[in-house]
């Protein structure tokens, strides 16, 4: 009978979902492993992978600590420049360059966070935005190091040596899987942080920061730590982006980057582990597929975004999780 069939099908979905949520790192990595074969071309998959990681880092601050930053362009951009500069100017190997990207982005996150956490709500967003603009102008003007308006060029990593194997890094499939290795480590660390006692403190600050302080937690310090950690993850994304593009366009530091990542996190579902990747995929696919038909793709993206904010504020992944959990009770 179809009447019997439906609840059973729903319960299978729910079990599957429970398994995905429980093993969120493994599930996300598995998905990302097959992902390049699901999109029109491999370079797009790399883009989505990088933006997904960027949105994940942003989500640590917004989704888990409740702080809406409009200055994350600075963290992605500085991660890119940090990685690119040490390759172009010092010829350091790619993996050290990634670590430099992380260090640079974390340091900038510390400065922006230190100044911004004194404010709350919309003021926090505005201060982060203003400070990110400062970062943009510094990199724009500091031509000798950053290439200024032309961007930083010549980040040429054509082959990489991985445990004795020479890998052709220009091949998009190789590039994707090497980067996925880095993203996998980041995902694992991210998940550990969320599950840790510190992750619990972040949630309490999002929920009720006065109570968190009364429990003995230093709210300002915790927020600053979250900002720096968010910067570190965005720095990884930035470094990978520099390696992917072989250049750092100065536009990465512009305000639109900060806006894009907010949209991706909201579309995918803020405060969810997998949501940022879904949001990044939808965002990038919209841009990629719709430009074939119309130059006004952002109009359609914007309309979709408004529909989500108004009717599905949990975002795509957040709504799916919510519906299947509600169906249970």
């Amino acid at each position, binding site marked *: 009978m179809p009447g019997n069939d439906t609840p059973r099908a729903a319960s299978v979905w729910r079990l599957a979902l429970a398994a995905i949520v429980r093993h969120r790192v493994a599930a996300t990595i598995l998905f990302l492993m097959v992902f390049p074969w699901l999109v029109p071309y491999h370079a797009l998959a790399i883009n989505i992978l990088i933006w997904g990681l960027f949105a994940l880092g942003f989500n640590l601050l917004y989704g888990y600590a409740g702080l809406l930053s409009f200055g994350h362009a600075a963290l992605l951009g500085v991660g890119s420049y940090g990685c690119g500069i040490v390759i172009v100017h010092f010829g350091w190997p790619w993996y050290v360059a990634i670590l430099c990207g992380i260090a640079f982005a974390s340091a900038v996150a510390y400065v922006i966070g230190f100044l911004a956490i004194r404010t709350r709500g919309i003021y926090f967003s505005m201060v982060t935005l203003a400070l990110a603009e400062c970062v943009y102008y510094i990199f724009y003007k500091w031509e000798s190091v950053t290439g200024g308006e032309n961007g930083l060029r010549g980040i040429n990593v054509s082959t990489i040596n991985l445990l004795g194997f020479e890998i052709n890094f220009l091949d998009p499939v190789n590039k994707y899987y090497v980067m996925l290795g880095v993203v996998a480590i980041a995902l694992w660390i991210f998940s*550990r*942080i969320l*599950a*840790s*006692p*510190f*992750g*619990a*403190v972040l*949630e*309490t600050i999002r*929920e*009720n920061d*006065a*109570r968190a*302080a*009364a*429990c*003995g*937690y*230093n*709210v300002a310090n*915790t927020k600053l*730590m979250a900002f720096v*950690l968010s910067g570190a993850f965005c720095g990884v994304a930035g470094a990978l982006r520099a390696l992917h593009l072989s250049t750092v366009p100065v536009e990465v530091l512009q305000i639109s980057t900060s806006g894009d990542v907010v949209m991706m996190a909201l579309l995918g579902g803020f405060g969810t582990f997998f949501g940022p990747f879904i949001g990044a995929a939808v965002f990038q696919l919209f841009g990629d597929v719709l430009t074939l038909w119309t130059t006004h793709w952002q109009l359609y993206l914007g309309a979709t975004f408004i529909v989500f904010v108004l009717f599905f504020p949990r975002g795509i992944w957040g709504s799916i999780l919510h519906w299947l959990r509600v169906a249970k009770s």
Partner: protein
Amino acid sequence: MSDILVAEGVGKKFGGFVALKDVSVSFARDKLSAIIGPNGAGKSTFFNVISGAFPASSGRVTFEGRDITALPTHEYARRGIAKSFQITNVFPQLSAHENVRVAAQMQKTRYNLWTPRARIRELIAQADDLLERVGIAAKRNSVARDMAHGEQRCLEIAMALACQPRLLLLDEPTAGMSPEETVRMMDLIVRLAAERTVILVEHKMKLVMGICQQLVVLHHGELLAQGSPDDIRANDEVKRVYLGQGKH
């Protein structure tokens, strides 16, 4: 060292409004004390000053002989002073158990980024014990927001106890409770006071007369009287404020 908390000449101004004026009170260790007074007497302001919600404008507060007047809020819990709020104040989207577990965690680990919470069994057990003690163990996995008002108040007390405080401050713990819930809450408070110093703010004088060892009466932001319930009952000033002029 028989007095655990001492307020000396504490005053608080909000702009031009004087909410507290020169209040000097000592609270005895291991006693159950209550701060009472009519509406607008400055009870909550005084409570907020001694619990670290905001600093006094003048005077000083010492806890176990150390000045705590200007400490940031989070330092209070670390030094052994825990409080419950007048308006229920929990983490609404977390489960009852997680509310208490995260409060207990402060003693042990604050910035551990690596060990999964589920593996720190000691804290999990401690939170379960505390839920049991305040009588809401059955609600362990309920989301705090969905719990009844009285249960949320008990949850708050469990969270305060999780800091293992030597001084427990409760701001109108029975506010908005049904008569049965009130009786249960007062029982709980008496039991808690057997093991530590408890100071509570209460609007209803009758409620605390029978159980407290020390009473502090505030009126118009000033100290009106302090002493044992019998002293207070016999005090003419208190009678005039509470009985003579009726309720205001």
